[in-house]
């Protein structure tokens, strides 16, 4: 039907899953980071790696929310905080098993996301952004002020190590290994989702909500589901963080961190697996570098916010799909679900 008219030579308009430097760099970075603490046996690198992997877990979820559902959250630090504080409070004050506490944190986070998202996500982008921003501020104030539960600014000390039964994650490198495993799990989950029925629905509604609804996609619900999923990922990251540092205080869970997560996500790009990880790694490294330099030269330490802000603007203006997708024309590029399953079916 009219298709024969066009020559077959036109066929390879599909982006081939060839070698993309950005992607290779992303994977190389990932492997390097994954192996660094093992090779160097360095506590510094392990804790650095933990930071990166923890952030990356949140950014993977944020990437699903922003890149595929087209929604923006400026309050993911709140879900991160809920995970961390659930673990801290339940294990130190109620003697709950760490794994159970982790699940409780994830559930609490999911519930909050569900409540928040139910009406807000039906609305335009800026509503959810502002709503989550407000939520983040409220959660932060609650942590600072709810002294009986959270010890306020003093924070909670003595969080036990994560005991998995067969292994107790009582050293930085071990905890780091566990965080990387969790990150890989989240990345795989995200990959699976993108190439699935609900994932296709998400990508579809990102392009046209009306057409997606006409295909039977419940747009509000699809957005809500991915919002909840990303909140759960953030909470898990929070729990892992609490068991790594074995101490929590309000400072790292502020609105600033929420915004920084958005920077990581946008800079890395949500369109590929390497994106969020590369974004988190790049951001964390630069931030640490500036912080270290700031010890010597004061004003260099103050450079971070300006730098991240300008990079954010530049990336949106000049490569809106993030650094990991510089050569990626279409949202999924060569790696479509179909391309993979077609072979084995």
């Amino acid at each position, binding site marked *: *039907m*009219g*298709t*024969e008219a*066009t020559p*077959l030579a036109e*066929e390879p*308009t*599909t982006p081939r899953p060839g070698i993309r430097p950005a992607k290779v760099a992303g994977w190389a970075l990932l492997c390097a980071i994954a192996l660094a603490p093992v090779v160097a046996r360095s506590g510094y690198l392990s804790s650095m790696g933990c930071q990166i992997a923890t952030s990356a877990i949140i950014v993977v979820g944020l990437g699903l929310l922003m890149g595929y559902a087209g929604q923006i959250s400026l309050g993911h630090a709140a879900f991160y905080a809920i995970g961390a504080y659930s673990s801290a409070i339940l294990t130190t004050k109620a003697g709950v098993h760490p794994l159970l506490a982790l699940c409780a944190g994830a559930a609490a986070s999911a519930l909050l996301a569900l409540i928040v998202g139910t009406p807000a996500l039906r609305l335009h982008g800026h509503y959810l952004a502002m709503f989550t921003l407000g939520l983040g501020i409220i959660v932060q104030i609650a942590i600072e002020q709810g002294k009986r539960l959270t010890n306020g600014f003093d924070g909670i000390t003595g969080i036990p190590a994560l005991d998995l039964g067969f292994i107790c994650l009582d050293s930085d490198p071990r905890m780091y290994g566990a965080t990387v495993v969790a990150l890989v799990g989240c990345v795989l*989950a995200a990959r*699976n*989702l993108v190439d*699935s*029925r*609900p*994932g*296709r*629905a998400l*990508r*579809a509604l990102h*392009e*046209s909500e*009306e*057409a*997606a*609804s*006409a*295909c*039977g*996609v*419940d*747009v509000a619900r699809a957005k809500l*589901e*991915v919002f909840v*999923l990303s909140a759960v990922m953030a909470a898990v990251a929070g729990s892992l963080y609490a068991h790594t540092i074995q101490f929590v205080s309000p400072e790292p869970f502020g609105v600033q961190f929420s915004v920084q997560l958005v920077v990581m996500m946008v800079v890395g790009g949500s369109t590929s697996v390497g994106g969020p990880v590369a974004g988190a790694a790049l951001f964390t490294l630069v931030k640490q570098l500036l912080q270290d330099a700031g010890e010597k030269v004061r004003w260099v330490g103050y450079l971070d916010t300006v730098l991240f802000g300008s990079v954010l603007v530049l990336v949106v203006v000049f490569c809106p799909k993030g650094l990991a997708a510089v050569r990626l024309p*279409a*949202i*999924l590029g060569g790696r*479509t*679900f*179909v*391309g993979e*399953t*077609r072979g084995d*079916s």
Partner: protein
Amino acid sequence: MTSTTTPRPLLATQAVTKAFHALVAVFEVSIEAYPGQILGIIGPNGAGKSTLFNVITGAVPLTAGRVLLEGRDITGLPMHRVARLGVARTFQNIRLFREMSVVENVMVGRHARGRSGILSAVLRLPSTRREDSTLLDRAMAYLELVGLAGRWQQPAGALTTGQQRLLELARALAAEPKVLLLDEPAAGLNTRETETLSDFIQCIPGELASSVVLIEHDMRLVMRASHRVAVIDRGRKIADGPPAEVQEDRAVIAAYLGDDFLARDTSRGRRPVEGRP
């Protein structure tokens, strides 16, 4: 063609009215689409045809009236519910998921037929994988039907306008709808493509969808394909009946068709569709 034993209409609107503030785009329009038939809808630009589709599918809330599907009141249901009950549509201004591949577009079209949720998708359970691979096969079958199977991997945005219209058709058909609403499917197609499309649309009722409602400006296509034709002018239905009758209708000629059309086209009338009673 006057059918004596008319079955119950599959889709019906009852005195549907839609006003955008002061502008009454659709006023008390009642149409009925019967199983196994094609209902053509014609009318000048801005008559309210697309708005009628939007009201039926729940894309815009209606001001008054009712929409019935198989006798069931579906008035005011959200779009995805209407879609899941068996109403599929194409859009006058093509709305494809341009960055997704051709076959993925069709797969989304079949969304309502799938079951796997977000949890099983994230875990990629065996049941999900099975569902996806059958879904892929079905989607490919629909692509073959419209002749786009060769381009299944391309991004939908890379197709020509004609191909995009076909893809929208495939996407809508993939839902296996009871009623298929086509909004100017031939717009932007050349004569040859329109010809093929016309043949194809005539094969849809009873086979791929129970009933078709066809908005079209191409008179030859409408008159040839439709079992019945409704004429809408400035929001009101001014005629409804077999193509031959509608073409003779004085009100229609005055409002819309014009004398020169009659001079050219009355001889053609409606051609019975081969192979169907």
